[in-house]
């Protein structure tokens, strides 16, 4: 983002970048940047907290009026509260030894509740309805190479299936009650669900595949490295 900021400024636009990695901003030296102590993936910090988000944006946009540049790098002073685990959050009841299809059916009502709560879903990259996921995954585990036409290859079809499974479960985990931390969601998904176990199995199958694209994508993009079992 800092590099794009520089390129847009060269083309005549005032820019301000939010920087997630301060070291990168120090090296790239964009015209104006605000470093925030948000976790990667949340540059504006705190979901469902407009007041906190406005604090971040006001501080960032204020840099547009500064005249003491070029190269202004400021730090946002406060940690977003969502970093901390929430003791009041309760994980959905799941069992990683359950069949994925049965677990998914049990999770779907929570997902629907989440859609009503948040007014949307982030599921949709796989171009498949959840009802199709168990059979597609089973085909991969059986050594077949099905392809979703919109995604062109088996590797990408499985990659985005994994993304959609994680998204559905992530939304279900936030369907009711107070917000969990990102770590709580990850821990529940990767350690306590059949879906997490399925993605680990898909990764292993992909890495044993003779399909080079599936092997490469599966090794890097199905399971985040800290959670590889």
């Amino acid at each position: 983002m800092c590099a794009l900021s520089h390129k847009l400024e060269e083309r005549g636009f005032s820019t301000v970048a939010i920087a997630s990695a301060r070291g990168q901003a120090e090296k790239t030296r964009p015209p104006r940047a605000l470093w925030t102590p948000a976790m990667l993936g949340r540059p504006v910090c705190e979901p469902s907290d407009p007041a906190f988000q406005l604090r971040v944006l006001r501080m960032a946009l204020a840099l547009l009026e500064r005249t003491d540049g070029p190269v202004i790098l400021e730090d946002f002073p406060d940690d977003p509260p969502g970093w901390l685990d929430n003791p009041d959050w309760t994980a959905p009841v799941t069992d990683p030894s359950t069949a994925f299809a049965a677990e998914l059916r049990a999770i779907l009502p929570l997902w629907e509740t989440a859609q009503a709560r948040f007014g949307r879903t982030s599921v949709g990259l796989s171009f498949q309805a959840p009802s199709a996921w168990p059979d597609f995954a089973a085909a991969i585990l059986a050594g077949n190479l099905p392809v979703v036409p919109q995604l062109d290859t088996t590797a990408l079809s499985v990659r985005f299936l994994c993304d959609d499974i994680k998204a559905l479960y992530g939304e279900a985990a936030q369907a009711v009650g107070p917000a969990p931390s990102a770590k709580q969601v990850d821990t529940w998904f990767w350690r306590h669900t059949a879906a997490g176990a399925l993605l680990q199995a898909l990764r292993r199958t992909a890495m044993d595949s003779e399909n080079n694209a599936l092997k490469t994508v599966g090794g890097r993009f199905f399971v985040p490295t800290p959670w590889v079992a």
Partner: protein
Amino acid sequence: MARPEDIPQPTRDVVLNLPCPAFDTTPFVAGPPLSQRRIAIVTSAALIVRGDKPFAFGSGEARFIPADTAPGDLLLSHVSINFDRAGWQRDINVVYPIDRLRDLAALGEIGGVADTHYTVMGSTDPAAMDAAVDQIAGQLKQERIDSVLLTPV
């Protein structure tokens, strides 16, 4: 994140050792007071409109997001799986703060919100994005936008 000690490995090493482009110039464009500026968002989250193909790995393209795109029609197709999605699942504004810009416009703190916003694949080498930046700049000029907020993931 953002503090190195908060980033799990191996992402920490990737982030800290990522090659960063060096520039010979330091452009710095002044503008009117914030209350007169119309702001556009550029996010590196590789957002797509539901039904479109996800960004390809290493793509240097830019995609345009009409400001009136429904939140439910936005999906995040960034190649990396090593950053949090739970925040995005709960609230698009952590990545694409369109509602907060509208709040600031309604309060008169900014002059307005652009009709079009922009997204790229953040893991792509910026050197491959010059054509995309030209496309973004062209649309910004057409809409008479003077200021840009860039958000990473």
